[in-house]
């Protein structure tokens, strides 16, 4: 798993709740923990405690590998609010984890023009400073601590 990481993108602290607290606690330790259905094996994204496929409420928090591929992305170059303006251009993406779920994220620490659909990426954990981290991804061939 990754060490603490700073992409310099805004990392506003989320508001964990009774359903999502274990997910956010794991991010602070550099892990993607998702609730896996004990009955049908499905892993919903975003994490929730009733399986949307079989309605089971028996879900177990399980650590994902933290690797995946880019499902799609866009490169934002203009038209954003103040918090993001100084970070233009930045990459918004959907990344498919190797375990299946597709999650919204950013691809960071690379030239935006090098990002491609299908590119292998690895999770990094942007510290919010409040006991949580925002999950972003970097191209796998690179050192994720650069």
């Amino acid at each position, binding site marked *: 798993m990754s060490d603490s990481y700073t992409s310099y993108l*805004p*990392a506003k602290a989320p508001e964990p709740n009774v359903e999502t607290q274990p997910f*956010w606690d794991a991010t602070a330790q550099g892990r993607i923990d998702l609730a896996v259905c004990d009955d049908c094996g499905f892993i919903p994204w975003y994490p929730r405690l009733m399986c949307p496929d079989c309605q089971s409420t028996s879900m177990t928090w399980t650590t994902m590998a933290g690797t995946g591929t880019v499902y*799609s992305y866009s490169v934002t170059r203009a038209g954003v609010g103040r918090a993001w303006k100084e970070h233009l251009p930045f990459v*918004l993406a959907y990344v498919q984890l190797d375990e299946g779920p597709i999650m919204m994220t950013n691809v960071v620490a690379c030239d935006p023009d090098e990002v491609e659909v299908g590119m292998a990426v690895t999770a990094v954990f942007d510290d919010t400073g409040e006991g949580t981290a925002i999950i972003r991804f970097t191209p796998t061939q690179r050192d994720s601590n650069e």
Partner: protein
Amino acid sequence: MSVRRVAHIAGVYEHPLREIPDKTVAQIHAQVAVGALADAGLTIADVDAYYSAGDAPGFGALSMADYLGLDCHHLNDTETGGSSYLLHVQQAAQAIAAGHIDVALITLAGKPRTGGAGPGGSARFGSAPEAGFENQFGMGVISGYAMAATRHMYEYGTTSAQLAEIKVAASTHAQHNPNAFLKDVVTVDQVLESRMISDPLHLLDACVVTDGGGALVVVSDAVAKRLDRHTIPVLGTGFGFKGMNSGRVDLTHTGARISGPAAFEEAGVTPSDIDYASIYDSFTITVLVTLEDLGFCEKGKGGEFVLDGALQAPYGRLPFNTDGGGLCNNHPANRGGMTKVIEAVRQLRGEAHAEVQVPDCEIALAHGTGGSMATRMGSATLILGRD
């Protein structure tokens, strides 16, 4: 139960202005309500059902029915973003079929241009279960749709030049609309050379941001028969929800894949029967994918379908958005569904601008998209006829 020909659109009104700094949102709702009722030959006193969505201020339909002075026994505040108003037509038709109502009023108003109001529905977003998982990444409306465009290009080879053809067709129509926000005809090159906002979508791939509003009056058969106005029968209706599918994200389809076939089946027609189509055009990619999902072409062939002036009125294969659409004319309250219905009614009445009036327009389709193609959306399709 089918609602085919049960309901009729008797009145429509589009606010003529695109910047309305000196009116409140409630005032604009009232102005378009009276406008649509006058178009139908009816008054506020005739309304027995009122429909509004997330753009209605305060308590929504409750606040607005009170402000308008309505004496109605049926309120509906269903919120599905920009598609709400087409869904309201379906719901009004259902209520008419059940014998509950005779005259439904549907209104939309907003001031994103001069009033600083965000997209409707955003006030509730902070409490959404998905909020913490989607509001951390700088996603704007356009960067979300841009991801849908990227994936479509990846899977099907769609190009930016093909998307630009959609804007070109809309601008060709908008030049004839004196109220259009953008009246200049643009070329494919001008779209491609416009500022890149979020790859692969340029500034000219995006709809306009306008103040404004619109309203519809939907009536029963009995009421339609005693009105002098040319009323438009609702032939078919459909609605489709498409979400994130719990992480099995699919950015190359919309809810039109569900709403379209339902509407066609109810109307008893096929895509080849459609003389004119109003297609929701928040972005060029929205149009292209919707055309595929409605069955006007195969999945993945939208880029080829829009070439050669296919969307240009009056003689293209499928004339679309002859008012200039959201891309050029008007996208009031950041919600384009209302104006889609209004222009379809103009076409069927023969009241579109002469330069873009489709000859012998007998069957029209109107389609709305609400929410986001990048996350969760409500899609609504109406097929309208001519008596």
